[in-house]
């Protein structure tokens, strides 16, 4: 083509005022609002079949969702498993996580848990056993249970919120920590509220994007 086309050149064309942010949301040119990432818990009920964990983890890596932890285990129904996923994403990202999860065929239902949901994590903490009495005292303070003892080591088990476990580890560190293993949180909604067994995948979809930010509580 020879450039014989008429009409104004690029720089002479009018540019509209409005703009969108990097999340595709129309913004006031002055404000430039972006959603900040927040940490939240998503619970998914899935078919208990081979490959479903890799379906979910593969989805997270290929879509570059920022996943903090993922736990999975059986439920009251032996054909179903529950996944508890902690993600840190801006609101549009969290919405995408939910929608993309729902698209996986073995996924039955998906839900972002409310901030008052019960969240528990398990940790095993192995410390040097030079001062067994003091280890027991610290364990007591955090409601931890001793699960193994040897002349050189003491291992305790502790369940609770992430903060509580962080605090316990901090306290145990005075004895010299040898090893730690943590599960990442698993969670259930409170009371009679269903955690993620509600409507089938397609029904919860047309709602508007949540705009207000929710913080998930980490305490008991």
């Amino acid at each position, binding site marked *: *083509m*020879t*450039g*014989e*086309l*008429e*009409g*104004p*050149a*690029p*720089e002479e*064309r*009018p*540019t*509209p*005022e*409005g*703009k*969108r*942010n*990097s*999340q*595709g*949301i*129309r913004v006031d040119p002055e404000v430039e609002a972006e959603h900040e990432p927040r940490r939240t818990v998503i619970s998914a009920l899935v*078919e208990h079949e*081979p*490959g479903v964990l*890799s*379906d979910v983890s*593969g989805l997270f890596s*290929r879509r570059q969702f920022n996943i903090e932890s993922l736990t999975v285990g059986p439920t009251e129904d032996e054909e179903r498993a529950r996944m508890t996923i902690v993600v840190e994403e801006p609101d*549009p990202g969290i*919405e*995408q996580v939910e*929608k*993309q999860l*729902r*698209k*996986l*065929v*073995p*996924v*039955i239902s998906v839900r972002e848990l409310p901030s008052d949901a019960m969240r528990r994590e398990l940790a095993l903490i192995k410390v040097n056993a030079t001062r067994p009495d003091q280890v027991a005292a610290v364990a007591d303070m955090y409601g931890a249970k001793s699960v193994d003892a040897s002349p050189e080591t003491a291992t305790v088990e502790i369940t609770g919120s992430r903060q509580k476990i962080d605090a316990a580890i901090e306290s145990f560190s005075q004895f010299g920590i040898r090893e730690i293993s943590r599960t990442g949180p698993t969670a259930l909604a409170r009371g009679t509220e269903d955690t993620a067994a509600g409507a*089938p*995948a*397609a*029904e919860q*979809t*047309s709602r*508007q*994007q949540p705009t207000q930010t929710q913080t998930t509580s980490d305490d008991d």
Partner: protein
Amino acid sequence: MSERAAPVTHHEAQDSESTDADSSPDAELETDATPVTTGAESVVRALENAGVEYAFGVQGGAIMPVYHVLYGSEITHVTMAHEQGAAHAADAYGIVAGEPGVCLATSGPGATNLVTGIADADMDSDPMLALTGQVPTEFVGNDAFQETDTTGVTKPVTKDNTFSTDADAVGDDVGEAFALAGTGRPGPTLVDLPKDVTNGETDREPSEPRTPDTYEVQEAADPEIVRAAARRIEEAKKPVMLVGGGVIKGDATEEVREFAIEHEIPVVTTMPGLGAFPEDHELSMEMAGMHGTGYANMAITHCDTLIGVGTRFDDRLTGGIETFAPEAEVIHVDIDPAEISKNIHAEYPLVGDAATVVSQLAEEVDSSPQATKWRAQCQQWKSDYSMAYEAPEDEPVKPQFVVEAIDEATSDRAIVTTGVGQHQMWACQYWTFTEPRTWVSSHGLGAMGYGLPAAIGARLAADDDQEVICFDGDGSFLMTIQELAVAVRENMDITVAVLNNEYIGMVRQWQDAFFEGRHAASEYGWCPEFDKLAEAFGARGFRIDDYDDVAETIEAALAYDGPSVIDVHIDPREDVYPMVPSGGDNGQFALTEDQL
């Protein structure tokens, strides 16, 4: 509209064949055929139950049991030269027929050769079912001969895939995969078939092909949001309808056309949406995006209300997100909730089937937008940025001229397939698309080599009186040229026009624009003579060197009742414009290299 455009639900397909089939999941089908005795028979029975007419594939050790049964079946198998060709052919068949195309491959290299075609179908939401052989279950995981973790490899590029483990269930797996491929948002599905499973004994007839219980599709959008969107449309001063491939896949062209024409709303299409709205209609602004028309991109950039139907707002369409339709409130109709607000936030999210939701909107909109000035502005842009090119007689042939000449020489219902590159863009820009399911191209993946196998698949799905034209580039054509052998063997009436610039031209254009004109690996020192090559395959070969040859050669190639190849020697320096540089502002498209 295509005669095949009626939506196929597999339940219907099933019902028509066995009227008194029980609706319970395990109902055995009533068929006249002999009872199945092996897993492979169950696989083929499932395909027959689904109404499959054609399958494309290549033989091999692990898939042999299935072929053994296919041999005696009514299904016509087309043996392709390469599995990539099988997948593209099945994909194109799916686009034109509106029901899943089927491809087969053996394990390992057969399966990996399918991957490009599967990924292509995934990006473009084309209905397709891939069946792959697998080593016997007891060898799986041992790195056996020709073993590949096919479900693992294809997981990210399939709508769903299944590793079949049981001869009793394998037919159901295939039926379910077929149903899934064509239901809701279409896409490719795959069933991996270990040889012991297909060889295994079973007397279980596959049940009715149906989607799994956990898969649900929302047909109609939330009436409340429909009402709100309708009010927005009534008040719009500068409305645009943005019509994507989902409109064609969802058989919503009639609804969309009626709606746009009734309310006099200018229509822009995406590349996969070509044919959804007649490009010769006054309201058509044609295609938007990187190589879309200047007027389409101006309309998108300046509209205040954007009604996107069946589009996923791909970056080749939007350019930079920040500057895409910066003043528009967006109404987004899509059957896949995950597409809503993925790239462009929708103020009015309408999840549902395109035809249903556009009808809902049509019901709800009481008055047309007051947009006389806006329409005049759109017409002004159409003349300001008209798609002109120069074609001096004494210079090499311009590709645009060739596209227009073939368009003129064929009917409105002719089907166009392409490779990927400049030739693909000239086909988009200079062919006037007026009918759905007449444009078959690799959009989201941009897979060179798509054109010829796609023409083969399209040919089998097309009506006899529809011409099938493939525009290819010299580079793209070379990637799957071996499929000419198939076209000749099956005596398929297709015409390939190779827009030969002896460059991998699109790359050369970008090098000229953005890489100091250094033609790294984009220039062919020697390019085969495609007309002679075609003759060697047994097809008819033609060559065009200047304008005098054009009309006559096209006529002869179209008249030939079999595959023909026209090697069109075009101006090697011709570039594709307008162009929005990657991630750029659609309203700032360049008309020449100087403006980039």
